[in-house]
């Protein structure tokens, strides 16, 4: 175990765990989001230690760049600009203690087998693979082609869903348009009319966008 590796790992691990602890304990939601970004950055460093360059870049682009910014947008849209309007309050003492107990028991349950086994006698990694990005790309488009395409479909659905959800809530009565089927109709008719209701709502939304 080389010393530079060890020092780097220790720093990254302390930053990741420390800022994660701040994320779940701080009162100001905005500060929580910033420490979340710091934790993600430290985890990106861990990926470099594990010879996963592509995941390092993806982690910074997706987690630090996209998800954190999305969360900050969410905070600004729902709790005022500084996060002071609604504090990130925890539940009562009972629920905090329950959550703490569950988390500690889970961690102890993971820790115990590791401690009981001989410390340090784990699998030894092979020599670091060169050019993992190319291998990863080839693998994603051959072995994992179907999951890859499904993931793109999922992203499309999520995008459309997020837009529709965020748009519809502007309407005065969002629920009324998606008509509940009448009592006398057969289930098939009910589904049909509900589908028509959704289509109608979508069309109205499109008009409003224009």
């Amino acid at each position: 175990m080389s010393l530079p590796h060890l020092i780097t790992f220790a720093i990254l691990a302390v930053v990741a765990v420390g800022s994660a602890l701040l994320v779940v304990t701080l009162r100001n939601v905005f500060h929580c989001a910033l420490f979340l970004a710091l934790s993600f950055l430290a985890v990106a460093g861990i990926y470099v230690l594990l010879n996963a360059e592509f995941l390092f870049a993806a982690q910074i682009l997706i987690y630090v760049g996209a998800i954190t910014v999305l969360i900050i947008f969410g905070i600004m849209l729902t709790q005022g600009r500084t996060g002071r309007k609604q504090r990130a309050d925890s539940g009562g003492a009972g629920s905090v203690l329950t959550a703490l107990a569950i988390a500690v028991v889970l961690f102890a349950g993971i820790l115990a087998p590791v401690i009981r086994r001989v410390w340090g006698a784990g699998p030894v990694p092979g020599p670091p693979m060169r050019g993992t990005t190319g291998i990863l790309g080839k693998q994603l488009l051959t072995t994992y082609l179907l999951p890859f395409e499904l993931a793109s479909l999922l992203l499309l659905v999520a995008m459309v869903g997020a837009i529709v959800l965020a748009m519809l809530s502007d309407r005065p009565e969002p629920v009324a348009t998606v008509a509940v089927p009448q009592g006398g109709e057969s289930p098939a008719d009910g589904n049909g009319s509900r589908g028509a209701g959704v289509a109608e709502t979508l069309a109205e939304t499109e008009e409003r966008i224009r």
Partner: protein
Amino acid sequence: MIPLHWYLLLAAALFCIGLYGVLARRNAVTILMGIELMLNATNINLVAFSRFIKPAAASMPLGGQSFAIFVMTIAAAEAAIGLAIILTVYRNLRHIHVDDVDIMRW
């Protein structure tokens, strides 16, 4: 090289912190942050195993990293949908305190 245990323990610590956040917090946005922490911890596990354990099939030399990419995709989709739902709740109720979001309870 750092032993595999250390990566696994780091991931376990991050996962448990995220779990605590999900269970203890009452603000919907911070609950979402806890979920992101947990997903991140599983990613560390996947990448560490992919580095340390030689895969059985030769056709997938980096299976763990591919899985981590899919987890990131799911996390991004989940964050987008989750925040849209939170936004909708906020517009209807003027707060996102999850204990008081009970209008769908019968």
